[in-house]
């Protein structure tokens, strides 16, 4: 299975990919991830690739992702060509305006982006930032999206192993908050279905 996670530097894409890969390994599969680490973290575009099964390269070819999880609307639109036609796209409704758009050089047209995503994929929009805020921290938006993906049946990893992977990868004091965020994501997905 091929999963693309996209967002803006600092949104927690790397932790999300770690959890998905660790969950897959607990499920008995092999997993690879490919990360964006470095300069782009400073508010730039970040993309994580997660691949489970027996592949050699960690990087998903264009048009081959089964699932796109995007933490930000514009970055979801930017990475949509990595998704296979008819693939699932689970998109956080939150928008992060790039400085270039603020300076007025290129418009940030959220409605148009949304339309493009809907037309080209099996799209679900989740208000992950606000759901995470209600759970205790906006930083858990990444886990809300993973929960939503699980709730929509888009992940071939068991709940038990995903929760174990969360336990193994977040600080103990944030574990309960993250489980709450996961379940809130699952619940949000049920409402979308």
């Amino acid at each position, binding site marked *: 299975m091929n999963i693309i996670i996209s967002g803006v530097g600092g949104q927690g894409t790397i932790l999300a990919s770690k959890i998905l890969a660790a969950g897959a390994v607990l499920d008995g599969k092999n997993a690879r*991830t490919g990360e964006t680490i*470095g300069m782009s973290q400073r*508010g730039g575009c970040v993309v994580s690739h997660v691949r489970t099964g027996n592949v050699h*390269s960690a990087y998903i070819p264009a048009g081959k992702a089964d699932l796109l999880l995007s933490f930000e609307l514009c970055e979801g639109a930017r990475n949509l060509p990595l998704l296979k036609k008819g693939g699932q796209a689970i998109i956080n409704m939150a928008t992060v305006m*790039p400085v270039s*758009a603020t300076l007025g050089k290129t418009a940030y047209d959220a409605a148009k982006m949304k339309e493009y995503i809907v037309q080209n994929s099996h799209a679900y929009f989740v208000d992950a930032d606000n759901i995470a805020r209600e759970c205790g921290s906006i930083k858990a938006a990444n886990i809300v999206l993973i929960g939503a993906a699980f709730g929509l049946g888009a992940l071939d990893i068991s709940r038990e192993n995903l929760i174990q992977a969360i336990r193994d990868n977040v600080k103990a004091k944030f574990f309960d908050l993250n489980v709450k965020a996961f379940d809130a994501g699952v619940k949000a997905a049920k409402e979308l279905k």
Partner: protein
Amino acid sequence: MWMTERMVTLKEVLLGNMAIALGAVHAGVKVVCGYPGTPSTEVLESVVHYNRDGRINVEWSTNEKAALEIAAGVSYCGARSMVTMKQVGLNVASDPLMSLGVIGTKGGMVVVVADDPGPISSQTEQDTRHFGKYANIPVLDPSSPEEAYEMAKYAFNLSEMLHLPVILRPTTKVCHSSGTVETAGSIYEYQPEGFIKDPKWVIFPPLSYKRHLEIEKQQQEISDLFDHVPFNRIEGNGKCGIAAGGVTYAIVKDIIDAFRLEVTLLKAGAVFPPPNGLYEEFLKRVDKVLVLEELDPVIEEQLYHVQAAKDIRRPVYGKLNGFVFPAGEIKFDNALKAIEDFLGMKLESDSAIPPMELPMRAPVLCAGCPHRASFYAVKKAMQGKNAVFCGDIGCYTLGNGKPLEMTDTCLCMGAGITIAQGIKKAQPDTYAFAFIGDSTFFASGMTGLANAVYNQTDINVIILDNSTTAMTGHQPHPGTGKTMMGTTSQKIDIYSVARALNVGFVERLNPFDLKKSVETVKNAAEYKGISVIIFEAPCIALIRPQAVYTTRNCTGCRKCIREIGCPAMSVANGTVEINDALCYGCGLCMNVCPTNSICQEGRL
């Protein structure tokens, strides 16, 4: 020497850089040093992660040259050492490396140099494999995190067998990808012999000549050895041959599997000295060859060399005949296109989702970043003046972007201070400014500053001291006093260093005091002689948000956005909004607003 079983076999998802670190730990490395640089940084940090019992001495050195020399000293004592850096770091460390290739080593010594095809986070797309050839040092080039782990362990044994340092050269797609790595559970245990005094450690011309003869002979022996290492092999059958190096092997392998191609695949992982015997066998088995490798056509040239030496003639399709693009990363898509062209068949129809035109999202200085305030103060102070702003390597290189546009040059670590001197010499009526970060100042800024003082070149140096090495993920440095062994040393004070170097004008202040900062920069610029201003304010990653600002009665003039370009600010319905999740409460925008419409939330 003996081996001891100390750990059980584990299967876990490891980042390539962690796999290298774990390989070194299992190989019994005693000392690890390096200088941060993307994509290499996490190797050393992961050694610290695995070093819970403190048996390994780990340090961030002041620069790569210092690190490599320390690792050499460790090796001279018979202990195993590893040094880590990015590719441009090896340029700095090339002086000791070249000589070490002549003198040789004793304890296994591995030089991890991460290359960055793209480049994604680097100044150059240089290929470290050339350094292997230049310095007569073996080079291993992993194709995956799993292989990186195996190669790291093997490299120490190889180094000890050859009495040469070994370069382990991962690329970004290995460093920053993770794989499911099975780690064999033993740590190599041994007692280092210690330093034995011997003339062989002192480089003199006659010794270099003698060693040169030995080393050239040794190259052939290593080449023969590399014919049979598992990192080099021929897979599959078919009259069409594909040669792939490093991480490109993984991509080609996925393409072969996906389309069930009948080709002969040469995997080259130990690439210098070249495995000529294996190359010869490969060439004889095929009718034509496609070479896919990132950066320079190293394997391709090696294959041409074997053809000439062994009188074999097979058409080679690669970078040298323009068949494969010469720069940038090799990805699935462009590798597939090259293979389709090479085989003369279409493998996949283009049916991907068409891209949409979207606003660019370039990396920017974070909301609340003190560099923004420093740049803005200098910009205000020098408005209307003929000034050139020489930048350097770090987060502050992002000062080149709109709207600040305060980086006119950027070349390499430490070059801002010295290029400013060149500009001042050529154009004495120009105010020549140099911006440099705290970590970069210790790495390679001090010598340039000494040069300016000695040669009396009137430059204005701005040291952006944010108490960390921010760009590479917040490593400590001599100015922080924190070490990678968890100890604290006395901080080296940049102000005192500048004073000790006889700089006449030295001031330190907080750049968020905008008025005082602008005034100080003006004074520094008019001072006859070299000036140093140290802008001191911590990187936001080290502190909690100080406050949250908001707009009230905003007139929508957008001066704040036009002047400082803070990512927390955007325009909605004609007025400026501040994103409370991003705002760090630096207050710079409040000082810029001409209508007093920005205030701390809850204060008005």
